[in-house]
């Protein structure tokens, strides 16, 4: 994993951006002069450089996607599987629409079910006011969209759980070499363990320990979430440790001279310095967590996108392959959106608004 190699890059970018900023303020008047003297350079018939560049970037990505689609369509039609031809983009797209409609139908069925139940119960009460009315839950099968929601909930819960442990642990390890030396072997040992190895153990532990008559969460949910948490701990722990340990020596000396108490030292000096690396770790963690979750759901048959894919695979209808392909693309999109969300959060929390985040 490229956890450590990412670090110097990010901090370098930060420093460059800062010095650039100073230079640009000093040289501004000189820069502005040609604009004032020669406004025609920037006039209507030429698009500004920055806009030109982003337009070029956007059109290049469109071209890339189109080429990929063409290639996909061309090769897909020539592959025959036992479930029919491999689906091309067109089949996948129409299947996606179909899956959304399925969800609407299922929602309608649910609404109808409760309406019928209400009518029946009202009638019962009218005939006999003392009648015992029962409200039954709806037990329709979960659709694709329901499975997405379940997966998102699970990954959010697992990720949050992991961060609650990872960030404080990383800070402690970064601050104290003793604790780092004590925990590092364990971290290195557990880091490369596959989620699927944890899964049976977690399942057994959850069934043994999470016993309650009225559980807040389902066991399968807890199992998946804990598996996710176990796997996405490590990138954040390691990056936070490195970030905290590499706080500028001078700033630490300032803190020592002022005699800042530990909690102020962490809040005012350590955390702001380490935030870029903490976020690098969190982004890696979230990506790992999302990957792990799909695998865990598949193996454990816990509700979610992984189970959806496995069910479709076992189902083996002529639509299955395109439905799985829809799921694959959706998984990719969600992963992308989760990463963008983390970036937005970082931009919001970070003190350095100059740095270009990528």
């Amino acid at each position, binding site marked *: 994993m490229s956890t450590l190699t990412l670090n110097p890059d990010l901090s370098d970018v930060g420093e460059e951006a800062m010095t650039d900023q100073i230079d640009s303020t000093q040289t501004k008047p000189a820069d502005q002069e040609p604009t004032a003297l020669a406004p025609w350079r920037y006039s209507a018939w030429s698009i500004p450089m920055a806009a030109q560049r982003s337009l070029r970037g956007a059109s290049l990505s469109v071209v890339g996607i189109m080429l990929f689609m063409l290639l996909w369509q061309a090769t897909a039609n020539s592959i025959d599987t036992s479930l029919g031809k491999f689906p091309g983009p067109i089949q996948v797209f129409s299947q996606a629409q179909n899956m959304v409609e399925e969800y609407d139908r299922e929602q309608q069925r649910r609404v109808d079910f409760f309406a019928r139940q209400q009518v029946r119960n009202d009638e019962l009460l009218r005939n006999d006011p003392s009648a015992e009315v029962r409200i039954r839950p709806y037990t329709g099968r979960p659709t694709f969209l329901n499975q997405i929601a379940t997966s998102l909930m699970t990954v959010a819960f697992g990720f949050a759980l992991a961060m609650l442990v990872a960030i404080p642990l990383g800070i402690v390890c970064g601050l104290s070499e003793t604790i780092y030396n004590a925990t590092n072997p364990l971290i290195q040992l557990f880091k490369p363990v596959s989620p699927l190895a944890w899964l049976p153990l977690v399942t057994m532990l959850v069934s043994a320990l999470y016993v309650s008559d009225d559980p807040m969460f389902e066991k399968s949910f807890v199992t998946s979430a804990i598996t996710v948490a176990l796997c996405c701990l490590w990138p954040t722990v390691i990056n936070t440790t490195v970030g905290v340990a590499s706080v500028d020596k001078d700033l630490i000396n300032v803190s020592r001279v002022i005699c800042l108490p530990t909690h102020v030292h962490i809040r005012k000096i350590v955390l702001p310095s380490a935030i870029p690396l903490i976020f690098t770790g969190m982004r890696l963690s979230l990506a790992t967590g999302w990957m792990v979750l799909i695998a865990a759901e598949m193996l454990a048959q816990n509700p979610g996108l992984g189970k959806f894919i496995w069910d479709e695979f076992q189902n083996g209808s002529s639509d299955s392959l395109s439905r799985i392909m829809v799921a694959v693309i959706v998984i990719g999109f969600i992963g992308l959106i989760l990463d963008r969300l983390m970036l937005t959060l970082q931009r919001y929390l970070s003190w*350095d608004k100059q740095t270009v985040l990528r």
Partner: protein
Amino acid sequence: MQAYLEISKVGIEFNTESGKFRALQDVNLKIEQGEFISLIGHSGCGKSTVLNILAGLYEATEGGIILDGKEVNAPSPDRAVVFQNHALLPWLSVYENVELAVKQVFKGHKTRAEMREWIDYNLALVHIAHAKDKRPHEISGGMKQRVGIARCLAMQPKVLLMDEPFGALDALTRAHLQNSLMEIHADLGTTVVMITHDVDEAVLLSDRIVMMSNGPAATVGEILPVTLPRPRDRLALAEDPDFVHTRQQVLQFLYDKHKFTGAVAA
């Protein structure tokens, strides 16, 4: 009689990969209250190490330091340090950088309003009040160093320790800051220990110049009193025979008594 700040028989040894390295040996120095002392010497002669021991950031292997009747063995706002590269927190504004120190040092002694007033006073002292809401990356190097000085002065230290405070600045900015420092020293009577590479700076600012011998096992080589009357004006001094003579003596020490290895900023 005991001096205000007394460094006696200080030595320090570092553990390096190639065994023990003795950086300082038998450093003795007595400093009176309100005195301005410069430490000058070749690169790597242990000037910064002396300062770090004074600050309490390093622990001396032998010997000790007594400040105002108390032993120095840990960092404290009593001995504020101005770092060479300003060491401001980039995520805090100029005001907040000073506030961080003031809040800690005067917790329970000053009210919120008094603290605000005190921070503004110190920012005004170094002529930086107009930029108090700016972040460090928005101001020039000279201004950053002014903030660094304000942060230290705001702690009301017994001794102000300065580690090549103007080393990274251009000549004009440096002259401005030296003037500010002379004013502040005259007004507040702060005791100052400053490291410098700049012979002119040392002569202009100091009451005494402490010249260090080359390391390893560096020590105080010679102490040169500067008797020029204050206030000192750099333009008038440029041709003053006393100034030229003192400057000559410092250069002599740096060039002659020790193997001259590199250029000394003169």
